């Protein structure tokens, strides 16, 4: 199984229409990858599906870059 970072990057690439190679661990969705606010909502939806979890709105707001998404998933996976 791919590791979580790779899976997150893959989803970010799909959702934001960017090249996976251009996504770094500290890439900000809005500032570096050109996401708008609706893109970030959709990205969270996609993460929820990929990792079969529910991310509450107040937590979702804090996920603004790849690292934060990876950290969230690692902290909540399998709970």
């Amino acid at each position, binding site marked *: 199984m791919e590791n979580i970072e790779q899976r997150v990057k893959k989803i970010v690439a799909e959702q934001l229409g960017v090249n996976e190679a251009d996504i770094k661990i500290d890439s900000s969705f809005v500032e570096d990858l050109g996401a708008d606010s*609706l893109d970030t909502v959709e990205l969270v*939806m996609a993460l929820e599906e990929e990792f079969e979890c529910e991310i509450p709105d107040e937590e979702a707001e804090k996920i603004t870059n790849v690292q934060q998404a990876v950290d969230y998933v690692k902290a909540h996976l399998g709970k």
Partner: protein
Amino acid sequence: MSLQGKVALVTGASRGIGRAIAESLGREGAIVIGTATSDSGAAAIAGYLQEAGLQGTGLALDVNDAAAVDAALDQIEKAHGPVAVLVNNAGITRDQLLMRMKEDDWDAVMDTNLRSVYRLSKAVLRGMMKARWGRIISIASVVGASGSAGQTNYAAAKAGMMGFTKSLAREVGSRNITVNCVAPGFIDTDMTAVLAEDYKQKLLAQIPLERLGRPEEIADAVTFLASDKAAYVTGNTLHVNGGMFMN
């Protein structure tokens, strides 16, 4: 048929305008889920759809019950797929001069007519965003634009729908989801049947087409907005009122 296989959710579909909308969308090939507040209403919806040979069913749903709305949408998605067309039609009146209006009259109208629009629209958006296609159509009213003595609550809720519609249209346009209102004028339904005869005559005198509208004429406007023919129409209110009010 322009809506072949698409799931359409119509609230308040047991009679009047809602029923006409459900039937019209069904004739375009949509799988219609019509809601009513009671089980008997839901059964009536299932009955008229079946009788007309249309796909879909009735569902008992209180649009003011958030948990029930979520559960209903889950159920619909599992059985038929995600909702592609939402018609916010459920509505009530509690007419009263403001001087005499109770908070209950205000709240009941706001909850059923406006809060339900927030709740249902939010609930269907996820599926529409994923599909990159969606139609949210809310049934407003001419009085939301023109005002009407004795209907401060109803007119406020209907005008609220129009503002909601414009804002949501801006939010989700990039995902190919259109959001519009249809604002009926004076339509021949149970809701207008209770009006006093002299009041009806006064209203009729203000209608250039000199007659009440039929529920099917509202349904036609909704079906147009739901179709691909209206793909470039969003954030709008389509007034269907015989010329009673001109924007």
